[in-house]
Structures are given as structure tokens and as C-alpha cells.
């Protein structure tokens, strides 16, 4: 059975939000998860043939999502993230 290898974890800011980026390799594929553990975790995941590719995909998707999050005052409409 495969084991996760090259596990790495780092904290950074994306679109003004503190996030945690976790990447590991399983077999020949790198898996990246970006979560935001303070407001409550959300998940963006991506895979790639290299660590850089997996993280780049995940970061792009995460930034696009986070930029849409409204820090708002009510009434706010139906959702905090347009499109959901």
C-alpha cells in the first residue's frame, strides 16, 4: 500500500485570508489541500505531477474563491459566496 511522502505544511495569506497549505505525494501524484482553519475549514484541493503544479492550481482556485467572500453587513442577500 502506498504511503504519503514529502509531506509539507505552511501558513500564508491568500486574498487577505490566513490559510494553511498542505502538500504530499502519494505514488506519482502530488496532492495539495488549502484550508482555512480559523473561520472554519474550507477545502480547495488540486493534484499535479509536481509539487509546484499541484500548489499552483490550488492557490489559483483558492484565491478566486476567497476574493468573492463578502465581509458584509446585513441585509446581505442569500450567500456569502456568490455562485454557491
Amino acid at each position, binding site marked *: 500500500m502506498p504511503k504519503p511522502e514529502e509531506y509539507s505544511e505552511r501558513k500564508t495569506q491568500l486574498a487577505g485570508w490566513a490559510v494553511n497549505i498542505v502538500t504530499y505525494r502519494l505514488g506519482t501524484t502530488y496532492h495539495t489541500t488549502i484550508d482555512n*482553519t480559523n473561520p472554519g475549514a474550507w477545502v480547495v484541493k488540486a493534484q499535479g505531477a509536481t509539487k509546484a503544479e499541484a500548489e499552483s492550481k490550488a492557490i489559483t482556485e483558492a484565491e478566486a474563491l476567497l476574493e468573492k467572500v463578502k465581509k458584509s453587513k446585513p441585509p446581505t442577500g442569500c450567500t456569502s459566496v456568490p455562485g454557491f
Partner: protein
Amino acid sequence: MTVQTSPAAATQQGVLVSTDWVAQHLTDASIRIVEVDVDTKAYAEGHVPNALGWAWDTQLCDTVRRDIIPKAKFEQLMGQSGISNTTTVILYGDNNNWFAAWALWQLKVYGHKDVRLMNGGRKKWIAEGRELTTDAPKVSPTSYKASEPDNSLRAFLPEVMKASAERAAQLVDVRSPQEYSGEILAPPGLPETCQRGGHIPGAKSIPWGKACNEDGTFKSVEELRALYGSAGITGEKPVIAYCRIGERSSHTWFVLKHLLGYQHVKNYDGSWTEWGNLVAAPVEKP
């Protein structure tokens, strides 16, 4: 069966197991390991060998009305999972065991005797480089008989309204500070939300994540007691925990009820998506 726990956490015995312990009991016939994730696709990407996967949004709730899993469906799920009334169930998942704690809470509601969390959850298992598989385990179905729901573990709206109005119980809001203040309605990326932001009047803000270490494990009993005690949550009065849909508050419920041993702790699974959508409900915003 010996349960491995932190030496400093005597009361954790019986409800927490370490990743080491799980690795040593992967093929133990008296144990069923189950993964429950926020991200319901995570299990299929690779999971603890011999673990089953439950989807919180289809298998651990009533899929018609908003409610926990009905008793008959719960019995069916347990039976199909090869879990008997005497099986030791080990739950783990992503996001520091959010929905694993949600599952544990429901197993306790229906009276399952021996259910435990894998301390650190999926994150710690992966960080430690332990084996993952995509193979589903072979399961021999059983017949399971659940108890009637124990609603001493669950708070419904009228009780929460009374707790807020009369301070009949201590309310703990385990969401993020931004949700508590009303700055945001839900964590980024999560769809379940509400019409108004803020918190239930009288609720104390103690975000769920403060109970965890960086590696996803729970803090020591001493640290947890200090954390909640500093907000006046000492177990002397009844406590009701809430969040947005009830999963993060299951995590805090687990901490207060099972790690700190507080007697009267309830999870308000209606949480902010119920309260924040009520017409004319009082809302506190700092």
C-alpha cells in the same frame, strides 16, 4: 483492549485513540474504523486500511427534513457497516475531525456504547506517512438495535431561546470570531448560511480550533480546562454549544462532555443556520 492516551489526559481514556493505536488494530475484528470527512471525496483518494467511509450529507442526516439520521436509517447504516452493538467504532476525518465528531455525537445519541475518535484525524495519519488504500474493506452485515434518541445530548430551539433569555444554560459559540461578530455569514467556501450575522445573545465566543494543537490533536485536559474556564465555562452550569450547522459544535461538545467530563452539555445542531434565519429572533452584534 488498552487505549493509548496522553499521560496528562486521564479522562480521555475510552474516547480517544492515537494513530499508533489504530495502526496496530487495523485488522482487529472487534473494531470498525470509519472515515467521515467534510470533503466527501477525500475517502476515495485514499484512506486508512480497512476503514469504511460515511458521507455526512447523505448518510448521517435525514435527507428529507432537516434532522439527524432517523433511528431506522441509523440501524441500517450500522448493520450495513458490519457494526454490532458491541463493536468498538473508531471515527476519524478531515478538518481536525469535524464530521467525525458529528458522527460520534449521533452514535452517542443513539446509545452506542464504545465509540472513539482517532486523535489528530486524517491530517495526522497522512503527516506521519502512514499507509493509505483505495480498497474498500469487506464487510459482513450485522443486525443493529439502536436505543431511543438521547435528547439530553441535543438542544432544540425552545431550549436555546430559554437559555438565551433566562441564562438558563451557558451558550458557547464555537464559530470563528468573524462569524460571531457578523462580519461574515459562513466560513469562506461553505454554502450553508443565513439571513443575518451575529450571535445568540449571551453566547460566549470560544472558537472550536482553540481546542486543538497544530498537528490536529486535542490539547491536554489542563489546557482545555483553562481555555473554557477563562470564559466561565467550568461545567458547573449546563452548557449548549452551537456553530453554523452543528458539526463544529459537535467537536466542542466532545471536548466538554468527554475530555473534560462535564455532565450537562448539549449540541444545538440547528445552530446559526436556524437562529440566523428566524424572523424576529434577537441577535447580538458587537
